[in-house]
């Protein structure tokens, strides 16, 4: 695809998303909001997996920690202030990522995969086994955060449309932020680390600090996704931190094609879309999901994302592009 076609497709998709609430049903608006939140989640992981070369298998921890943070910050009979709850939740996830990153970034390769998983499991059991967040039953978020500043409310998250556009805005913000980050000197170093960390060290880069910063940023953005998810659905369970959730988001990144922000978004669309289609077909939808994944790996090396791009490239006769 040449870049003009890509830009056109991106804008068309954005226009569709923006216009949707005016025409579509509330059910599908919520589904789109869910996809967009998971797209944020997937993009945050892609910063690690696709751009820095850090395969984290515990990214759900930061998603879940922020989700619990907003639930715990919300009083029982009152809404919390959005302007307090949102930064606090994101910060909680980022701080957790920073502290865990201090440990896990000492390991490499398969050990890194497993240690990130282990720390996520620890976080999972904290919420699962202790009464902090209602134990294994989880916790309800009785009120969505209040956007009022000194009595004036620019929007109201209880309004489905307002919440929808808030999520769209958050997704665009994360996309733009990551685009900037990846273009900046910092982002170039991350990509260099993925390509050849040893050489980056010998060129004078303190790669550990860069990786830690990336891990913290990715954790914070996963936290933003977790915050929005909790607000959208109104409850939080330990399953938000489970390794299945970490596996799902990794799946989105890989299916979408690593190291490609739009791919991460496409991966989220594909995964949720497949889930919706398969659950409509059978109670045993996970079987179809599993078969799809196995087939994708066996017959489409390079990820599903490479396939449509290849087809489109043939149609356009141009080179592939993000």
């Amino acid at each position: 695809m040449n870049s003009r076609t890509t830009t056109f497709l991106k804008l068309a998709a954005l226009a569709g998303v923006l216009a949707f609430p005016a025409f579509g049903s509330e059910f599908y608006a919520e589904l789109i909001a869910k996809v967009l939140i998971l797209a944020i989640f997937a993009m945050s992981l892609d910063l690690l997996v696709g751009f820095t070369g850090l395969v984290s298998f515990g990214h759900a921890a930061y998603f879940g920690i922020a989700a619990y943070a907003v639930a715990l910050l919300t009083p029982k009979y009152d809404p919390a202030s959005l302007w307090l709850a949102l930064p606090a939740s994101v910060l909680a996830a980022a701080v957790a990522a920073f502290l865990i990153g201090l440990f896990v970034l000492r390991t490499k390769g398969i050990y890194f995969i497993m240690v990130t998983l282990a720390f996520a499991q620890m976080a999972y059991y904290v919420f699962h086994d202790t009464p902090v967040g209602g134990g294994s039953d989880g916790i309800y978020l009785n009120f969505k955060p209040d956007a009022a500043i000194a009595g004036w409310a620019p929007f109201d998250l209880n309004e489905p449309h307002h919440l929808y556009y808030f999520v769209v805005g958050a997704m665009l913000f994360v996309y733009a932020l990551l685009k900037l980050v990846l273009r900046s000197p910092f982002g170039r170093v991350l990509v260099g680390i993925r390509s050849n960390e040893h050489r980056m060290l010998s060129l004078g880069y303190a790669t550990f600090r860069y990786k830690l910063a990336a891990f913290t940023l990715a954790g914070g953005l996963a936290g933003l996704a977790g915050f929005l998810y909790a607000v959208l659905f109104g409850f939080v369970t330990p399953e938000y931190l489970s390794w299945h959730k970490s596996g799902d988001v990794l799946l989105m990144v890989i299916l979408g094609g690593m190291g490609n922000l739009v791919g991460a978004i496409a991966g989220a669309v594909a995964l949720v879309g497949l889930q919706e289609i398969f659950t409509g077909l059978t109670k045993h939808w996970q079987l179809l999901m599993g078969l799809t994944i196995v087939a994708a790996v066996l017959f489409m090396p390079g990820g599903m994302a490479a396939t449509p791009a290849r087809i489109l490239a043939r149609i356009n006769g141009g080179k592939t592009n993000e």
Partner: protein
Amino acid sequence: MDFVSFLIQVLNSLQYGLLLFLVASGLTLVFGIMGIINLAHGSFYMVGAYLAFALTSLTGNLMLAIALGLPLAFVFGAILEWALFSHLYKRDHLEQVLLTYGLILIFEELRSLAVGDEVHGVTIPELFSASIPLSDNLSYPVYRLVISVVCLALAGGLYWLIQKTRLGMMIRAGSHDRDMVKALGIDINLLYRTVFALGVALAALAGMLAAPISSVYPGMGSSVLIISFVIVVIGGVGSVWGALVAALVIGFADTFGKVLLPDLAGLMVYLVMAVVLLWRPEGIFKKA
């Protein structure tokens, strides 16, 4: 804690740790020799447990069920290696993670389709159904001791297999240097298939042995999978002896964690892992 309860917890720790070793040993071998991350390894444990349930219902005896189930599991493993895993050796870790993650979903749903989602019990063979009284009101079930003894015997057998046999020589060579195995003129495909099938059989056996005490339930593979990974990583990827030591450490940490810090029981295992990896980022028995 008085001495008798302490003794019981020690025996439980040993039994749990040794059972985990059966699962983890196969995982670490497949890891170390073929370089494959197999998330579906926990499913083999689940398959074993359900095989024990089905075959016990059929034959009326768990021991008979194991005798029948073990070769079935081995053949199942060999077929799986031939059909799927042999295509994964040259793929990167991420694709392996992805494919085997898909396999977990498939195995779980096939299990659900075949036997449903109910929890099933498996009766302990009459021969081992007694308990040994340890004090006035505390006793220890013979069957748990049997599990420990069987697992210990298997660990010994594995030691013999790896240290003293030709297959073991190939395994040791393979986990050290893949090219050397080829240079020695060993049929690498056959070696891989055998090791993989052996791993599947060991995991399934663990599931069969555990079936009467843990009962048979959906998702039982997942929990054991993650713990086994922890063991493999703590022990050092590819090291069977590392896996044995790590499995026992985890057995004790988990069992005593549940007794001493019930609120944080789930955490203990991962805490141990974090501490070990801080001390040795590549496991206790890191391969040079």
